[in-house]
């Protein structure tokens, strides 16, 4: 187990390294292949009337004039040793791990990412709890009453949920429940959990439900399919033959087995969501990592893009690792 963990951790680090190189090449090498010079790249970050000399100064400041490997080396050095950058009158130290600093806001990237992480975490975890509870219970009931009105209705809603994009359901929900009925706060409302947990939850209910609507649908369908399969297993017959009440049979024996593959997908979904809940955050104007990523991309802010991509990749890789480890706990047949 221990050796396995070490092996997986090393693999994760190598993976992150590859991701960082890939992102770096996409954003720094591709434009050059397209014919852009260092000054062309830098001209994105200066005012519209800047002349060639000013652009060139900027290119030098941003390091575009150096060879790519030097630039990547600087990025790596920042991660392991930190970096210094100038604010004009003074120099500020960006301690390791320094993911670089933004060309646009001229702020270090990592503090911004950490600052925004709680929003995304709140959104992802809260949404996940909502969709998991609704999706799984709807899936179980649907499976047990296969073909019933409930099953057909739930699966119909699930289909709608999977097909309707968040920016549609989200804006619709805001319009109805926030602006017309006034039950929930407007988009962009967010309170820190540590400041006021009740208000935190209240502010996030609409985003959670919107996010859950999309994912609950998928989980309902997954759970239904899993339960239909599991409830036909021999061990369910055994459980009944023991005289267990049907509820115990369904939950302790049926759902327990059906949840195993769902746990895997759930873990990965959370990982992905932590890295990029772009649509939900954009729709609800929440300043989390997803919104940050979107801003970074639209403003061509390469260090931000790089930072947020690496963070997102980290989440997915860690989620993968956690799922694999969790799998061992969940399914005793899997042993490392």
């Amino acid at each position, binding site marked *: 187990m221990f050796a396995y963990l070490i092996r997986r951790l090393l693999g994760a680090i190598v993976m992150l390294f590859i991701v960082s190189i890939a992102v770096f090449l996409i954003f720094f090498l591709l434009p050059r292949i397209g014919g852009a010079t260092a000054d062309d790249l830098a001209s994105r970050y200066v005012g519209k009337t800047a002349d060639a000399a000013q652009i060139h100064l900027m290119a030098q400041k941003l390091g575009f004039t150096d060879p790519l490997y030097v630039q990547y080396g600087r990025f790596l050095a920042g991660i392991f040793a930190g970096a210094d950058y100038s604010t004009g009158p003074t120099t500020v130290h960006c301690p390791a791990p320094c993911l670089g600093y933004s060309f646009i806001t001229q702020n270090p990237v990592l503090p911004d990412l950490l600052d925004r992480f709680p929003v995304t975490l709140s959104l992802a975890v809260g949404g996940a709890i909502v969709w998991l509870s609704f999706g799984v219970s709807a899936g179980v009931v649907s499976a047990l009453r296969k073909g019933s009105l409930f099953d057909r209705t739930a699966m119909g809603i699930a289909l709608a949920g999977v097909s309707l994009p968040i920016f549609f359901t989200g804006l619709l929900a805001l319009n109805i429940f926030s602006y017309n009925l006034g039950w929930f706060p407007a988009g962009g409302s967010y309170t820190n959990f540590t400041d006021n947990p009740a208000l935190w939850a209240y502010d996030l209910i609409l985003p959670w439900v919107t996010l859950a609507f999309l994912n609950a649908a998928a989980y309902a369908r997954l759970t239904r399919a899993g339960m239909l399969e599991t409830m036909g297993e021999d061990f369910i*017959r055994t459980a*009944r033959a*023991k*005289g*267990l009440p049907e509820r115990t049979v369904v939950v302790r024996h049926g759902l327990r*087995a059906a949840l195993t593959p769902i746990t895997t997908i759930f873990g990965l979904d959370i990982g992905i969501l932590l890295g990029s809940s772009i649509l939900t955050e954009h729709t609800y104007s929440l300043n989390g990592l997803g919104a940050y990523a979107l801003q970074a991309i639209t403003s061509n802010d390469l260090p931000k893009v790089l930072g947020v991509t690496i963070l997102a990749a980290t989440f997915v890789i860690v989620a993968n690792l956690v799922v694999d480890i969790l799998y061992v706990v969940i399914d*005793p*047949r899997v042993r490392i």
Partner: protein
Amino acid sequence: MTDLYEAPTQRSFLEVDDLRVHFNTDDGVVKSVDGLSFKLERGKTLGIVGESGSGKSVSSMALMGLQRYAKAKMSGEIWLDGEELLSADDEHVRSLRGKKMAMIFQDPLSAMHPFYTVGAQIIEAYRIHHKVTKAVARKHAIEMLDRVGIPQPSSRVDDYPHQFSGGMRQRAMIAMALSCDPELLIADEPTTALDVTVQAQILDLIKDLQQEFGSAVIIITHDLGVVAELADDIMVMYAGRSVEQGSAREVFHSPQHPYTWGLLGSMPRLDRDRSERLLPIKGTPPSLINVPSGCAFHPRCAFKDLPGEATTSQVPELVDIGGGHKVACHMTVDQRLRIWTNEIQPKL
């Protein structure tokens, strides 16, 4: 004395009367069990024998009330210790399951939950019917494992099913089934998945435990050899019906139905040459949706021409030929006796 009072005393411990289990499918009605009747007393063992699809497993599931979850259409009567079970409500039947009647399944690997330890599954079975603490139930589980012959039961109790060998798993399964001292034990192909030496051990175990607990036992198998040692009575099933039933002695020494002859012919025996030993039954088991007319066995019967036209037009009645030995066949008793004595027995 009134009828109400007398009724239970007149009935056997288990009495099945004209049991029918039908399933509606898209292709038509599957008549898995179609008019089955038999009796079983406490302390006795009934062997139900037949090919797969003959309705033996379905009828045992019906006894346990497990068919209630499968949307089956059932009719007839099942009397267990004076209670009619088909008309009883779900909750009552559930409370009987595991306690009054228990079941051992064919493949213990798939029949046990892979995510819970063997001990947990026995404890669970025990605690449904006994209000005891986990610790007490655990002690009981260890005792049960010990009783079915599992070495180091106090440590193996925490193992998962996949960590047991096939034979051990079947023992654990038996321990689970017996944990509440059931009065009726149904063993559905309890040895099929096991190798021969282990088979014998398991059969011995069931025999010992039956003597110890005094339960009524039903053993379901396609293998006459299994019931030869164990059963007091034997019922041979074909296409959802009983074609021959009687005491083990009668059925083994004076079988009356061509299908029973076929089953006996299929039994492997160590004292004969392979070439002449096996007399397999021709053809395949019938579809339960389109059961052949008349005697369901006639398409496979070597003697179907003897009784004439009735073979294909009339369903043969189960007729008592003396001493509780019943046969459903259009041939006369003489014809059957002659064929058995002259043609079949010498080849066995």
